[in-house]
C-alpha cells in the first residue's frame, strides 16, 4: 500500500533522532571510558585503566555492592508488600477498581516530594522520633532512621511498591477463574491452590515487577542523595560526582557502561526466564 521509498523516508526522522540522541551519546561515552585524566584535563590516551580501577579500588567495588544490596532489599520488600496487595485486590476484593485507583494515585505525587516527606518523618525532630519519645519507647532520637541505607531502602520501597504491584495484579487478573475452581474441585484447599496454581501462573508478573524495582533502585540517585548520608552513597551518586566536582569523566563513563552492561545482562536473563515461565496467553 505504501511504496518502499515512502516507508524508508518516513523511518528517517525517528532513526535520526535515535542516532543523534541515543546512539551518539553512547558511542561518546564508550570512547570516553578508555581515555584518561591528567592535570585536570581529559587526555585521549587509550587504555583500560578506568575499568581496572573500578574493579581493584575497594571504594568503588564497595559502593557497587552496596547499591546491589539496597536494590535487592527494596525488591524483596516491595514484593512482600506488593504481592499480597495484588492478590487481595484480584481475588478477594469486591471493590477492586476503587482500590486499584488508590494504589495508583500516589504515583501522581512527585518523587521528590515523597522523598522529602520521608525526610520529615524520619529526622531527629521528625514525626516518627517525636512519636517514639512521646510514647516513651525511646529517650533520645533514633539516629539511624535518617541519612542511612535504612532510609534509602524505606523510601525506595515506598516508591517502587506500586510498580511491583501493577504487573503482578495484571498477571493475577489474567488467571482464568475456572482454574482456581478446578483446583478446589479436585480437593485442594485455598492455600494449596495458591501455591500450586496461582503463584506459578503469576510468576511472569512477579518477575517483571521485581526486575523493574531492582533495576530502578540500583540506579537511583535522588533517594541516596537526600536521605542516604555517607553510609548510603550509591553508585549513581559516585558517577554524578565524577562528572561533576570530582571531574573524572573517563572513569564516570567506564562505571556507567559497566552498569549498563549489568542491567542489559539482567534483562536478557529475565526475558528468557519469562518466556519459559509463561503459560497463559
Amino acid at each position, binding site marked *: 500500500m505504501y511504496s518502499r521509498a515512502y516507508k524508508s523516508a518516513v523511518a528517517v526522522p525517528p532513526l535520526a533522532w535515535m542516532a543523534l540522541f541515543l546512539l551518539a551519546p553512547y558511542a561518546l561515552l564508550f570512547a570516553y571510558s578508555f581515555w584518561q585524566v591528567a592535570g585536570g584535563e581529559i587526555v585521549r590516551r587509550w587504555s583500560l585503566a578506568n575499568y581496572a580501577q573500578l574493579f581493584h579500588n575497594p571504594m568503588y567495588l564497595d559502593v557497587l555492592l552496596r547499591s546491589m544490596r539496597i536494590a535487592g532489599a527494596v525488591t524483596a520488600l516491595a514484593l512482600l508488600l506488593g504481592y499480597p496487595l495484588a492478590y487481595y485486590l484480584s481475588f478477594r476484593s469486591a471493590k477492586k477498581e476503587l482500590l486499584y485507583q488508590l494504589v495508583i494515585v500516589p504515583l501522581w505525587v512527585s518523587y521528590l516530594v515523597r522523598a522529602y516527606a520521608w525526610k520529615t518523618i524520619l529526622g531527629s525532630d521528625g514525626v516518627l522520633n517525636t512519636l517514639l519519645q512521646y510514647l516513651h519507647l525511646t529517650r533520645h532520637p533514633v539516629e539511624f532512621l535518617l541519612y542511612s541505607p535504612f532510609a534509602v531502602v524505606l523510601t525506595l520501597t515506598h516508591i517502587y511498591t506500586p510498580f511491583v504491584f501493577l504487573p503482578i495484579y495484571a498477571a493475577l487478573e489474567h488467571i482464568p477463574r475456572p482454574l482456581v475452581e478446578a483446583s*478446589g*474441585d479436585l*480437593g485442594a484447599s485455598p492455600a494449596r491452590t495458591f501455591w*500450586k496454581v496461582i503463584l506459578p501462573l503469576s510468576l511472569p508478573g512477579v518477575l517483571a515487577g521485581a526486575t523493574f524495582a531492582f533495576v530502578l533502585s540500583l540506579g537511583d540517585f535522588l533517594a541516596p542523595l537526600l536521605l542516604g548520608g555517607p553510609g548510603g552513597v550509591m553508585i549513581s551518586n559516585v558517577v554524578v560526582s565524577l562528572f561533576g566536582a570530582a571531574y573524572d569523566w573517563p572513569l564516570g563513563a567506564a562505571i556507567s557502561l559497566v552498569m549498563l552492561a549489568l542491567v542489559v545482562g539482567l534483562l536478557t536473563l529475565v526475558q528468557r526466564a519469562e518466556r519459559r515461565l509463561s503459560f497463559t496467553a
Partner: protein
Amino acid sequence: MTRLATSSAALPATSPAAPAASAGPLLALRHVAKRFGSAQVLDEISLDVAQGEFLTILGASGSGKTTLLRLVAGFEQPDGGEIWMAGERLDGLPPYRRRVNTVFQHYALFPHLSVFENVAYGLRVGKAPRTEIAGRVREALAMVKMADFATRAPRQLSGGQQQRVALARALVNRPQLLLLDEPLSALDAALRREMQTELKSLQREVGIAFLFVTHDQDEAMALSDRIALLHAGRLEQVATPREIYQRPATAYTAQFVGQTNLLRVCVERGRARWGALSWRYGPRDASGAAASSNPPRGEVTVTFSLRPENIRLLGSSSVGAPGATGSAETTGSGPAGELADEGERVRFIAIVRRQVFGGSTDWLELECPDGATLLARIPSRGILAGACEFEFRSTDAVPVRPDS
C-alpha cells in the same frame, strides 16, 4: 475395563449413612433456591439423582442450569433449601471437601502442568501413595484413550483431546458423582457426536452417577436415563427422554424438546373441538397435567400438543376442491376395542403451503380448513401441491399444561 466405582478406596461403604445411601438417592436437592441480586435464578428445586444414573439438566440459556450444577459442586451456596449426598449434608461444605468432581465447559486444564500432572493433581492433593498415583493416572488416561499424551502440555492438545484429559482428571479421583457443565458445547458437530457415544459408554463402564448440563435437547435425549427440564428457575418436568417427548407435561416442554403443534382446543360434553376438527375426548382420556377437576359439563379450554410426525399423509392427489373445508371423519376402524386404546383417526384436508426438504423427511406447513396452520413431518416423497388429505390419531394429541 474395571469398574472404577468398586475400588476399595472410593465409596464410603463403611460410613454409618451407608444403608440409607444404597437404598435412597445418591444426591437429593430439597427446595433449593438461589438469588443473584434481585433475580431469582433457582426457585424451589427438588430433585433426586439415583446411584449410577445419567441425569441431564436441560434448559435454555438463563434457565439456571449451570447455577444448579455450581451449587452441587460448591462454587456457590444456596440461599434456601438443602443439598444431601449419601446421607451427608453438602451445602455449607466448600468444594474441596465434597466427593464430587466437575468437568468444566472449557476444560480448565492447568496450563503449567503436563497432562500426567493434570490428571494426578487430585490424587496428589489427596496424598495418595506415589506408587499408586502413576498406576491410577495411566488407568484413567487409557480409559479416555489419551495414554500416549501423558507428557504433553495442554496447549499442544486439540479441544477434543483436552476434553478427554479433563474427564480423566475428574474420574481418576473416583467421585460418587460427576458433574459435567456443557462439556461438549465447544466441540464441532462430528466430534461432539463421537464424544457423546464415548461419554455414554464410559458412564456405563464406571458406573458413576453423571449430572450433565446442556441446552441441546438432542444430546440430552441421546445420553440420559432421565432428563430434568429447567425453565426460568423451575423444573418443568423430570422424566425419561421417551416420556418427556411423548408425554410432555407442559406447553413449554412440548416446544422445547422436539417440535410440536400447540392446539387450543374447546372441550365440551365429551368432545374436543379445534377449528373444523373434532374428536372424542372425555375424563377417562385425560391424563397427567390436563386432567381437569371440572365436571364433564360446560366448556373447557385445553391445550394439546400434537407432534408433526404424528400427522400422516393419506393422499397426495387433490381430494375435494382446493381451499374447501375438509371434513373430519371419525372412522370406526377395526373392533370397538381398538377405539378405546388408540383413539379416533381424525382426518382432514389441508393445503400444503410450504414444503421443506429435510433429508429423510419433509417438513410441511399446512393450512387447515379454518385457516389455522399445522406443522407436519412426513417421509420424503415428491413435491406435493394443493390440497391433500391428512390424518392423526386423537391419542397423539397430548394434553399439556399451558404456560402461565
